[in-house]
């Protein structure tokens, strides 16, 4: 009997990773080019910004919240960065910023700070709405998702943005010690977040709130402040990711980031972050993101049409969260 239960428990815990792992192996056998260094590198380059988004969302999930505005904030950050970092001699320059002087290289960094601060404001609103107005995070951030998309549309007038300065695209193409900047940045973010989650009171409070919000409050944890910090920080990470994705793509539009929040949530749950709160590791998030990106690439290699890929991704998202909830029910 216990053997049988163990199997069930194993499937609940690792089922989705196993299935996706098998799919990846199958793809590797059917399409030998899948496991080439080149392809793996390209997958890894996709993982970096997605990991930054997912690690931002993970804080919200651990405190029993969520952030559905993530994808749209990525888009807004990419658009604002793009409009501020076009080539001086580019013919299709963005109306509002076309008279911007041609700043030296430090401007690229300044723009990153600007978009992070702008998104931080939206994150602050998210945090205030969730903690002080007690709006369920699901609804509050869904509203923010719409708002940010609207703001992005108003700002860009839905025109695509391109013609980036070389020093901006260099952020994505350049490398240090033969390892792309994107990796370094994701690594630094990952280490910082690991430190925050494990070595600081804030991290402990975060897990405590997710484990039992009332008990945390009784223990003297400032629950509202912790939640606000989490949502602000998450928004700043989305901004960073949007900035990087823009550089990587060399252009952007309002559709950038669409749906990334769900992929991030799915990646988190695949990686062991519980939507019931209180549980989750940075390393798990990384694994979740890698698995999800491998899945996407495998589907491409298998020649599955993009339209069908959406259906599969949707199923994976629902199944991964359903399995996560099973864990919780089993615990009771």
């Amino acid at each position, binding site marked *: 009997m216990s053997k049988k239960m163990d199997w069930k428990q194993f499937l609940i815990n690792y089922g989705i990773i196993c299935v996706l792992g098998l799919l990846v192996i199958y793809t590797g056998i059917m399409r030998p080019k899948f496991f080439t260094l080149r392809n793996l590198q390209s997958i890894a380059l996709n993982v970096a910004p997605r990991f930054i988004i997912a690690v931002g969302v993970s804080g919200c999930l651990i405190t029993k919240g969520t952030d559905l505005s993530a994808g749209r904030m990525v888009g807004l950050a990419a658009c604002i960065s793009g409009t501020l970092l076009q080539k001086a001699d580019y013919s299709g320059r963005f109306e509002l910023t076309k008279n911007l002087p041609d700043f030296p290289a430090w401007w690229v960094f300044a723009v990153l700070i600007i978009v992070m601060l702008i998104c931080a404001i939206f994150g602050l609103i998210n945090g205030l709405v969730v903690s002080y107005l007690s709006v369920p995070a699901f609804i509050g951030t869904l509203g923010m998702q719409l708002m940010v998309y609207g703001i992005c549309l108003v700002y860009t007038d839905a025109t695509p943005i391109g013609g980036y300065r070389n020093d901006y695209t260099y952020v994505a193409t350049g490398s240090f010690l033969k390892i792309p900047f994107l990796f370094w940045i994701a690594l630094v973010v990952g280490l910082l977040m690991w430190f925050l989650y494990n070595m600081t009171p804030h991290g*402990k409070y975060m897990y405590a709130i997710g484990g039992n919000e009332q*008990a945390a409050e009784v*223990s*003297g944890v400032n629950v509202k402040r912790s939640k606000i910090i989490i949502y602000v920080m998450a928004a700043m990470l989305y901004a960073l990711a949007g900035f990087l994705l823009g550089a990587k793509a060399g252009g952007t539009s309002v559709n950038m980031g669409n749906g990334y929040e769900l992929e991030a949530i799915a990646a988190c749950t695949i990686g062991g972050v519980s939507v019931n709160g*209180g549980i989750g590791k940075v390393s798990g998030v990384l694994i979740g993101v890698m698995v999800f990106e491998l899945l996407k690439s495998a589907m491409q290699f298998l020649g599955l049409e993009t339209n069908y890929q959406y259906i599969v991704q949707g199923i994976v998202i629902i199944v991964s969260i359903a399995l996560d909830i099973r864990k919780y029910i089993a615990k009771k």
Partner: protein
Amino acid sequence: MAEYRLEMEDVSKSFPGVKALDGVHLKVRPGTVHALMGENGAGKSTLMKCLFGIYKMDTGAIRIDGEPTAIENPDDALHKGLAMVHQELQPIPDRTIAENMYLGRYPMKKIGPFGMVDHKTMNEEAEKWLKDVKMDFDPKSKLGTLSIGQMQSVEIAKAVSQNAKLVILDEPTSSLTDNEVEALFRIIRDLKSRGVSMIYISHKMAEIRQIADDITIMRDGTYVGSWEVKDISDDEIVRQMVGRELTNVYPPKGDYRTDEVVLEVNDLCSIHPRSFQHCSFKLRKGEILGFGGLVGAQRTEIMEAIFGMRGIASGQVLVKGRPVNIKRPADAIREGIGMITEDRRGTGILGCLSIADNVSISSLNHYLEGNVMLNHKKIEGLVQDNVGKLSIKTPSSRTLIQSLSGGNQQKVIIARWLANNPDVLIMDEPTRGIDVGAKYEIYQIMIELVRQGKSIIMISSEMPELLGMSNRVVVMCNGHVTGELEGEEATQERVMSYATQFEN
């Protein structure tokens, strides 16, 4: 006609580790109101749950109108003519009165192949039954527009509409105004005259005198006896409810009290009119101050208000003579107050976290390095220190708290507060759900703390514990402080008579 409407004979029920009911009898005559009395935890609710098939009896027999009966579940009980009006009503306020009365048994009609709810019949029937209990409400109005007392009447009408022969009223007047109580009594008398029997669970002597015919008293899960109400005095009832031998399961308590007042509460009023009002008391350094009273006396509420978990409308809290303004638990902690809450699962433990995290969560700021980083070595030191001192039985400090026993969980929570080094520790039912051995250890910890000059407020619904541990006892009833007893004057009878002093 059988002599008794309901007979429960020799009912016993055990839960792991406790005998909740031991040979209890209850015999209700037709057309009478039978009061069921006993202290908190005497087993009244358990007995009723056995009657309704929510718990399975280990031994015992139930007869209805002389017929031996087995009751499988609440639904079955209803079919056999038993209905319960709950202490905490569970209505759906946004639906109509009629819908609430017929929930789950809507009259249906057929429209071709489809069944649909027959609203017309439902409303007419509901109106008829409401009239029957002299309540002229529009069955189509929303239930939420009624007062609690009126909702209760609806609940009774519902019971009557299901042809109930026996209605159980569990503390029905606990949230009613005087007028509503009168209305309720009118309904009860009316039902009585029609031969319906009622079991009336209440602590209020005056009501029992007014409405009940017979009385059965329980104590610690055992049957004490049954009387006709006219044959027993109030004092006798109290004596029978508490008349136990006080066994010596408490460590010797010293008196470590000093004259210094560490916490003073003046005329504290809740924002809710039905919660605590105009409460005052003082706590001295080195004192264990017990808070006694019945469930619902608002002891927990006043302590949670002092700790910043509930709203205060007026009044003052002074810590060491200085007025303080506590809005959140964090403020209280800063003032040197700690709080072990009653609901360990709900507001105590952080279930999915380790013992180390649970111990350190409210004092993390003491272990910072360079203001940012936690010194895990220091935390581990604190945890190990406490695990040893409080003899917490655990394989390691990384073990999840939810895998520990209740007593060890409670010790972890105590350790959490000790880490803050508070001057005042409020302990709300500190030994609830804990086995005897661990209880004793917790008592020892409490005595050690007052010896060190800390002060403790202990809410306890267990009379022996209250008397065995407290230097002084404050008794509350219905949101008011009704009495204060110094060490030796505190007897079970005196506490109980203060605890049932509803009129003031």
